[in-house]
């Protein structure tokens, strides 16, 4: 257990002249070395099946799993009995939406979510629509936040659940969880939140925020990939139908042999994040301010997407007007970042999240997501700013749109040929 100082650097391929800088912490985070250290014994030495209830190997594994469950519960103010291990936030979200809806089928048939949710929440909702559920997709305001009055008026006596994410994966904005929780509790509707991007980054408390279900991801908080959790409230009890059954593990809500090392990794990741959240949050705040201020000082016509204040410090989503995002990414190959959500950037469509904020399609095409995290350094930030400024300036010089704008021509006045 050396190198406990958090000075982990992301290893870079020696073949590159200048090592690329990782600025894609919303796509995934590297597994913290302390987490890896904590996991390793459970791959080999303590390898038992945690469900083997009659020998030491099984007990040792079970004990480790239960310790991890406690660590996960602690970071969100829950009881360890309320934590269900899953294979990741995608499964947690699928289970929360489909599991709760299907359990209540026949009694209640309405679900409320929001247009900027992660794809797996939206796809789960679409599947429920095919099954006969009604789904309300709330719009968001220009700052990316849901309108509480619209939420209030969307709830009917048929509504079983409201699912609103804690932090958006593309634009980093934090939804008003406590206010949403209060509305839901008052109207006796379950409140589920996809907190994959939030856990370990902002304080969360399921009691204070009146959250009934919460999805957690391992690999978004410096834990391993392939593990996640779903918080399921016990009092008042949330009922849901399992999606993976057979074995009866996880209180019957999720069967399958628990992967002990991954559970341990998620627990340790939560423990570290909880211990370091305050200091790390301030550090990231300082770094993202440094980044933002330097970019804004050097380049005109750069726009921040999402609320300036109510956002996690590790995310900046910027539109560099008149420079197409993918073209820009190609020029800054020494920076690893994303021009949209990792899951969808292989497609050529502009981000549906940015479109939902009312960002023009042309501006949506010019946006980059800059994700900062635990191993980002000031030096990396300064280098990233320098490279982005250089490349945006070069590409603007060859952009016909920039030229037209400089001539004072309104791009909207031009009759563009669609193709």
């Amino acid at each position: 257990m050396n190198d406990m100082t958090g000075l982990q650097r992301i290893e870079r391929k020696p073949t590159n002249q200048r090592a690329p800088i990782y600025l894609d912490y919303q796509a995934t985070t590297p597994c913290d070395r302390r987490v890896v250290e904590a996991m390793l014994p459970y791959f080999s030495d303590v390898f038992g099946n945690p469900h083997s209830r009659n020998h030491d190997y099984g007990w040792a594994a079970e004990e480790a799993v239960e310790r991890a469950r406690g660590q996960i519960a602690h970071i969100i103010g829950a009881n360890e009995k309320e934590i269900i291990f899953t294979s990741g936030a995608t499964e947690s979200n699928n289970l929360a939406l489909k599991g709760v809806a299907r359990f209540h089928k026949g009694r209640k048939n309405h679900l409320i979510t929001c247009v900027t949710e992660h794809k797996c929440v939206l796809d789960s909702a679409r599947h429920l629509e095919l099954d006969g559920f009604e789904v309300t997709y709330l719009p968001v305001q220009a700052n990316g936040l849901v309108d509480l009055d619209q939420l209030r008026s969307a709830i009917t006596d048929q509504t079983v659940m409201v699912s609103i994410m804690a932090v958006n994966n593309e634009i980093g904005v934090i939804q008003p969880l406590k206010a949403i929780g209060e509305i839901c509790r008052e109207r006796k509707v379950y409140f589920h939140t996809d907190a994959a991007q939030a856990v370990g980054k902002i304080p969360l408390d399921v009691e204070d925020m009146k959250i009934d279900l919460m999805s957690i991801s391992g690999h978004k908080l410096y834990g391993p990939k392939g593990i996640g959790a779903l918080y399921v409230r016990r009092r008042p009890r949330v009922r849901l139908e399992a999606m993976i059954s057979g074995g009866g593990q996880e209180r019957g809500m999720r069967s399958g042999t628990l992967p002990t090392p991954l559970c341990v990794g998620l627990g340790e990741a939560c423990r570290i994040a909880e211990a370091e959240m305050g200091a790390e949050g301030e550090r990231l705040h300082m770094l993202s301010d440094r980044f933002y201020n330097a970019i804004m000082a050097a380049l005109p016509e750069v726009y921040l997407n999402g609320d300036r204040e109510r956002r996690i410090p590790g995310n900046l989503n910027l539109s560099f007007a008149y420079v197409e995002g993918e073209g820009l990414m190609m020029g800054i190959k020494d920076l690893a970042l994303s021009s949209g959500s990792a899951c969808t950037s292989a497609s050529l469509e502009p981000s549906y999240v940015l479109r939902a904020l009312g960002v023009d399609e042309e501006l949506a095409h010019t946006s980059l997501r800059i994700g900062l995290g635990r191993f980002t350094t000031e030096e990396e930030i300064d280098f990233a700013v320098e490279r982005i400024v250089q490349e945006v300036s070069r590409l603007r010089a060859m952009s016909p749109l920039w030229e037209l704008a400089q001539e004072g021509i309104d791009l909207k006045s031009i009759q563009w040929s669609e193709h």
Partner: protein
Amino acid sequence: MAYSTKVVDHYENPRNVGALDKSDVAVGTGLVGAPACGDVMKLQIKVSADGIIEDAKFKTFGCGSAIASSSLVTEWVKGKSIDEAATIRNTEIAEHLALPPVKIHCSVLAEDAIKAAVNDYRAKHAVGKAKAAE
């Protein structure tokens, strides 16, 4: 997504970036694509009295393949007559740059840009001839 070395070369060292005077009667300008679709190309050609393209410039808003496609066609059209230039097909561009299927539309846009520039040049001259005939 891995880009071919030719795309990377044109992206990093684009040929003939810039602008020609669009009010010049010897200059044809094509502006194709749409900002909302994520790519816009502006291609300009300067045509000599005997109908040969003696200069070409471009500006492009788009991905690396779009920039490479437009950079490439500025090289190809130079020295050609406007009729020859108008016969350049997108498939030749795509093949030369080894564009993957999702980027074929960039080559289509480049072909459109040549045609638009040639048409603009011809339109100017049709007007010129019409005026001369009056």
